[in-house]
């Protein structure tokens, strides 16, 4: 049916032209997709008057690298970034360790009630975090955990998703390795640490990166539970930045860019894991 269109028919006859069109389309789509990110950086370097002008300009008339320092001076952006590293790193670390232990039990050990308990874990995958938001807040408030690190980190460090992902991976590790270790006299803990964990490093790293990125992005929980600069994360800090500085676009977007850059760098460094992680969870039901 498409052969009725002369242009398409011509394309099919000439693979070179088709290929060029394909590459051109990819370039175009990528350029459009990256525009917001590029604009964020461009405006961040504009002068105050230029960025606040009634007619916004897209390319900076003059470059102002000192905007970087000014963004850090207006709000404690460095502190917020450090807090975000604590928050995201703490949840990722705790989640990865506890999920690996639990996943080992679910994948490799026999005990009464295993399938029922795993079923309960799976069921909670569907529960939106907004359902638990209010009870979690009340619990943390009662324990005097508001604006503290345990209060920030603990409620988000035990999810069923991590257990589920790692269990899937552990199930794929050949049992022979474990048997060999056991014959050599290793107990279960040694088997777990010396055999299973080293084999599962890619899966564990995937989970850690995934969790780190999603918590770096988390706005709602830190917004609710942190109320001073000592625990405030970058996502919440940007909100503060906006309310104290109005729409001073160059500095606001500079702060936004500074907050995003570490994540983009991390993303590029760990990209293979990250993509694998998405794919892995994508085919989880297959």
């Amino acid at each position, binding site marked *: *049916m*498409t052969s009725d269109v002369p242009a398409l028919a011509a394309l099919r006859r000439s693979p070179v032209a088709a290929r060029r069109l*394909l*590459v051109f389309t*990819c370039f175009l789509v990528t350029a459009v*997709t990256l525009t*917001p*990110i590029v604009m*964020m950086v461009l*405006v961040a370097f504009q002068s105050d008057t230029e960025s606040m002008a*009634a*007619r*916004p300009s*897209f390319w900076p008339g003059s470059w102002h690298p000192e905007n970087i320092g000014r963004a850090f001076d207006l709000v404690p952006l460095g502190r917020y970034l450090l807090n975000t590293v604590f928050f995201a790193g703490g949840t990722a670390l705790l989640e990865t*360790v*506890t999920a690996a*232990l*639990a996943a*080992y*039990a679910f994948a490799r050990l*026999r*005990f009464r009630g295993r*399938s029922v308990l*795993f*079923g309960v874990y799976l069921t*909670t995958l*569907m529960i*939106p*975090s*907004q359902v*638990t938001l*209010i*009870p979690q807040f*009340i*619990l943390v408030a009662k324990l005097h955990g508001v604006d503290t690190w345990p209060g920030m980190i*603990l*409620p*988000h460090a*035990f999810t069923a998703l991590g257990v589920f992902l790692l269990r899937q*991976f552990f*199930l*794929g590790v050949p049992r022979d390795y474990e048997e060999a270790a056991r014959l050599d006299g290793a107990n*279960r803990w040694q088997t777990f640490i010396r055999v299973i964990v080293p084999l599962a490093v890619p899966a564990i790293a995937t989970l850690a990166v995934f969790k780190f990125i999603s918590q770096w992005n988390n*706005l*709602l929980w830190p*917004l609710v539970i942190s109320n001073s600069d000592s625990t405030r994360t970058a*996502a919440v800090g*940007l*909100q503060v930045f*906006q309310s104290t500085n109005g729409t001073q676009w160059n500095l*606001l977007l500079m702060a*936004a860019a500074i*907050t995003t850059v570490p*994540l983009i760098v991390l*993303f590029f460094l760990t990209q293979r894991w990250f993509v694998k992680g998405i*794919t*892995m969870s*994508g*085919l989880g039901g*297959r």
Partner: protein
Amino acid sequence: MAVETPAAATAAPRRPPRGPLRRPRFWRHGSETVAAWLFLLPSLAGFLVFTAGPVVAAGVISLLDWNLFSPPHFIGLDNFARLGPDTTFWSALGNTAYFTFVSVPLTLLVSLGLALLLNQGLRRMAVFRSLLLLPYATITVAVAFVWVWLYIPHDGLINAVLGAFGIDGPAWLVSDDWAMPALILMSVWKSFGFGMVIFLAGLQVIPQQLYEAARVDGASPWRTFRAVTLPLLSPSVFFTVVTSIIGSFQVFDQALVMTDGGPGSSTTTLVMYIYRTGFQNYEQGYAAAQSMVLFAFIVVITAAQFLLQRRLVHYDL
């Protein structure tokens, strides 16, 4: 990676062969149970305290009149009865549904289209994939600010581009009709990368012989897509649809930054309304009741999708 179902896992051989020196059976069994619970303990304790407990508590709190400062009162289903005449709640629910049912199909189309484009055997495919995945790896709050800037009425970048084509762009975020589409456009931009990666993975496991066969039969590209690609990609599509619908029902960050629910209440989402009720008006009971309604919607929609899945999703290659 081998993927086993829970049933298959429990059906694994009950007693793997061990060395000749065996301890008595009850002791071995006992020690495995103890070991299992010890391995589970950290995760289980956290899970019970911070996930399972709060889910049950949410149900209980929804039956209370509680502002956190004075003692709670049991008021039965009054919080749920209050939802009926609460027009803001219904418009928040409507807005959330609007957002979901426009943004999910749109995201799906964009991610599928780009996955198909990148799957044409391009040499630099990995580079394009990384760059196209960048929006997914940014912070919603941060990029939401850029989008506010892009959407500035009259001379903002988007309207400037539209103007170049002779189109007089709307006032976007300050317009009752266009604020939601503006949020949706930004959200599609932010999230299409996730689906794109899943579809790329799905496309790469489709056997090439099927395409050869279709070509021999003289099938058109569209027919090949309908008869080969789409059915074999259906598990990936199903997964993406389920996760994006659940995600869309929880949209919050971009709405808070870009419109703060306005103009009027035209972009107030369910989660934003829950947040306001619980943490600005301190009506925890009423907020919990709203979150139970959100939960119920997600359960119903997910269950409906799993029923549909039996008819539409093909797992056999």
